[in-house]
């Protein structure tokens, strides 16, 4: 047995996982309309490369990656582009963003044949990364960071590749089902990543509430693979599936604050990402679908479905039998970190792991917050080992420098503190508020810095001009003075000449007079 490490805090939560694990993963029907946002990932939004009216095929690139941290978008099914415009998207702040809208033709005609299996061992690491990038693969665990970047360790030696199958959020089961049903594909993805990273060992971390997934993966391992791959059962304790927490549990190491796992020789990917990578490399299949958990008491048949990216959430919810009368709150993601979907017409994107339709009985009634009594329960459960009560105190009083001194930016917003708070203070909201205020201040400061630099440059230019002008004036004056001095000499010469002339004249007159005298 591998030695496991303990991460601080965390909570034992009711899983509610059995709800959506009654039936195997099914395929959702291809919808009549696909809405594909250009930004489904962290980084720069993709740039459209199709035009309205154009026919596109399944798997065709419809928007290319822009810059390094970005990901392309592919048509999830064949059809016609009917619009490239701002549409409502799934976002905590309910915003609109540019989407490519496709009316599907139902033929699902692929852009290339993708049947033949290709051998990843023949490919260089850089080629693997390029293919993964071109396939539009981003972290499917929820963050949506372009995966190829995490497969580029640079000069860093990679010791451990971790595949995250912990899935600690209540209700969500897409990873658990994927592991139970398609363990081989996960291992294939793992082997490709291992090849790209040249990792020494590979660990697959799974919470102990998923015995089927653990068994399936262990059974799928070949004896040769089990030399370097280990399926590790970790205790079920939220947020065991947080990247930092899982790394700590499996290796005892802490990802440095402001650092990345790669800085300690570790790379961590989600099981769904592993499958997407396997399909991209073996079959040149881009990321056009994902598994989504449809669950909650307001859904008649909770299930896991493989969904084309861009499918409207409403279509899926109807597919699973949403009871709108029962629905109290619709979330994308789990109850701990998910956000409210106000408008269910928004599309499923690459990071949509769960649609949670909560009935009234599942949502706690809003209770008025009481003052903080500093009981410290939040400190006890904080996996980042922060002092949430102090952060709250300073966030509330807008002392943002103090908030930062208490390491606000190490908060992973897991929500444990808010759940245990006896005063029912929405702590995470305060932290988000403080973070956004600090970001806004930073942006303003940057703007102010730029403005100040411009102003200083302007001042400098003015001063230079003034100096140059003065220089010029001085030089001119000198010249003039010199010229004036020159004039004096001339006048002196003239005067001298005049004097000489006068003297001569006088002498002549004198001699003439004497001559007259002598002649008279």
């Amino acid at each position: 047995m591998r030695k496991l490490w303990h991460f601080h805090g965390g909570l034992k939560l009711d899983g509610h996982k059995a709800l959506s694990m009654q039936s195997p993963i099914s395929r959702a029907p291809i919808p009549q309309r696909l809405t594909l946002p250009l930004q489904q990932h962290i980084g720069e939004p993709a740039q459209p490369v199709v035009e309205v009216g154009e026919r596109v095929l399944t798997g065709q690139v419809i928007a290319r990656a822009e810059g390094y941290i970005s990901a392309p978008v592919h048509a999830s099914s064949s059809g016609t582009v009917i619009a490239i415009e701002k549409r409502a998207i799934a976002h905590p702040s309910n915003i609109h963003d540019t989407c490519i809208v496709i009316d599907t033709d139902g033929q699902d005609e692929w852009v290339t044949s993708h049947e033949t299996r290709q051998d990843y061992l023949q490919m260089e690491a850089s080629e693997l990364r390029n293919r993964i990038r071109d396939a539009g693969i981003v972290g499917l665990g929820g963050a949506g960071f372009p995966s190829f970047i995490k497969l580029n360790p640079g000069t860093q030696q990679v010791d451990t590749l971790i595949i995250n199958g912990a899935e600690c959020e209540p209700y969500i089961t897409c990873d658990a089902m994927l592991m139970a049903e398609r363990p081989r594909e996960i291992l294939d993805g793992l082997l490709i990543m291992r090849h790209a990273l040249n990792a020494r060992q590979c660990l697959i971390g799974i919470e102990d509430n998923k015995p089927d997934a653990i068994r399936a993966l262990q059974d799928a391992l070949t004896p040769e693979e089990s030399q370097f791959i280990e399926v590790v059962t970790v205790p079920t304790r939220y947020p065991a599936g947080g990247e930092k927490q899982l790394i700590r549990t499996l290796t005892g190491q802490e990802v440095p604050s402001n650092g990345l796992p790669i800085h300690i020789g570790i790379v961590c990917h989600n099981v769904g990402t592993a499958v997407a990578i396997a399909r991209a490399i073996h079959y040149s299949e881009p990321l056009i679908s994902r598994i989504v958990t449809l669950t909650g008491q307001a859904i008649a048949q909770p299930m896991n479905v493989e969904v084309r990216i861009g499918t409207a959430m409403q279509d899926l919810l109807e597919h699973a039998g949403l009871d709108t009368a029962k629905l109290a709150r619709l979330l994308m993601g789990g109850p701990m970190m998910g956000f409210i979907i106000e408008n269910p017409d928004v599309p499923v994107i690459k990071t949509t792991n769960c649609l949670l339709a909560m009935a009234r009985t599942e949502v706690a009634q809003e209770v008025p917050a009481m003052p903080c009594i500093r009981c410290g329960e939040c400190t006890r459960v904080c996996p980042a080992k922060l002092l949430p009560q102090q952060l709250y105190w300073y966030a509330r009083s807008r002392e943002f420098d103090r908030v930062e001194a208490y390491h606000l930016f190490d908060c992973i917003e897991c929500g444990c503190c808010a759940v245990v708070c006896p005063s029912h203070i929405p702590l995470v909201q305060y932290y988000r508020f403080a973070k956004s205020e600090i970001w806004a201040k930073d942006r303003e400061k940057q703007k102010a810095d730029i403005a100040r630099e411009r102003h200083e440059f302007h001042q400098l230019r003015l001063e230079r001009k003034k100096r140059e002008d003065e220089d010029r004036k001085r030089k001119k004056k000198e010249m003039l003075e010199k010229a004036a001095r020159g004039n004096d000499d001339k006048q002196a010469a003239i005067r001298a000449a005049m004097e000489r002339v006068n003297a001569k004249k006088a002498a002549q007159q004198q001699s003439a007079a004497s001559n007259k005298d002598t002649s008279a």
Partner: protein
Amino acid sequence: MSAFITSPHTTPKMLSNSVTRMMLLVMLALIPGYLVYIWFFGWGLIINAVLCVSTALLAEAAMLRLRQRPLWPYLTDGSALVTALLLALALPPILPWWLAVLASLFAIILAKHLYGGLGYNPFNPAMVGYAILLIAYPKYMTAWLPARHDGLSLGFMDNLRYNLFGALPDHTSYDALTQATPLDKLHIQLGLGKTVAETQASFHQFSGLYGVGWDWVSLMLLLGGLFLIYKRVIAWQIPVAMLASLALIALIAWLVNAATYPNPLFELFGGASMLGAFFIATDPVTASTTPRGRLIYGAGIGILTYVIRTWGGYPDGVAFGVLLMNLAAPTIDQYTQPRVFGHERDKSA
């Protein structure tokens, strides 16, 4: 900001903890101590408790009204109730009624609401109420009833008559009825040049284990405190650090000179140590809030309690120990921040 609901989206079960629940558990934990106290020292505690509770609740309501705060959530949070019940336990059972009322008013109005109410008071309200009375009315505040064991006991009506009207039963005088607490008595006698052994041999207070009656009350409060730790209403660090530091100093002193320094167990069970450690020092609002800070905070109270008891002029040191450490709590918190995940251990702390 509150109109915009973001994660976590709590489910009803997650929301089970509340300030009210914590306060109710504290009250539950006080029951054994209360019962044993009444058994040994009579009905005075009940009279004080009724006076303190009703005054505290009225004062709480009046202050909430003045401060334009909603009455219902704050009156039902249980905090004023707990303050009153702890204050009642700290007061002598035989006490003029207006002193119990005065102490409650000081606790709720001065110590709590003038600083901003629940969560904002820097000093433990019950201890502020107690300390003001102790300084202003030392005569009343140091006179205890003898424990039942001594054969002298006051009936409910007698006790009530004295507390309300100052009327004593016919056959007795105030001085005959009251006596000092064991801690106080020992202190006085040591001051007169007696040894610990001589004192303990010659006064009723010291029969039983470590002050008759007080030992059992302390034991029950210890049980209640362990229950609170088990229920995670209080953090273990404060009581453990306080009792350990108190016992350690007492042990050293006792080993050095047993004639002038009592047995450490007497320090633990003979006075308000258990009440202080589990019910007063653990008031989260006024205590240190970091794990390491709580150890320092608790140890500080233990040390100060011993110092005040041994070399000070008051019958017990817990109240002043707590109030002094209340002063230090924000500073302690500042310098005992835990190492945050992914950070090197802070060198400056």
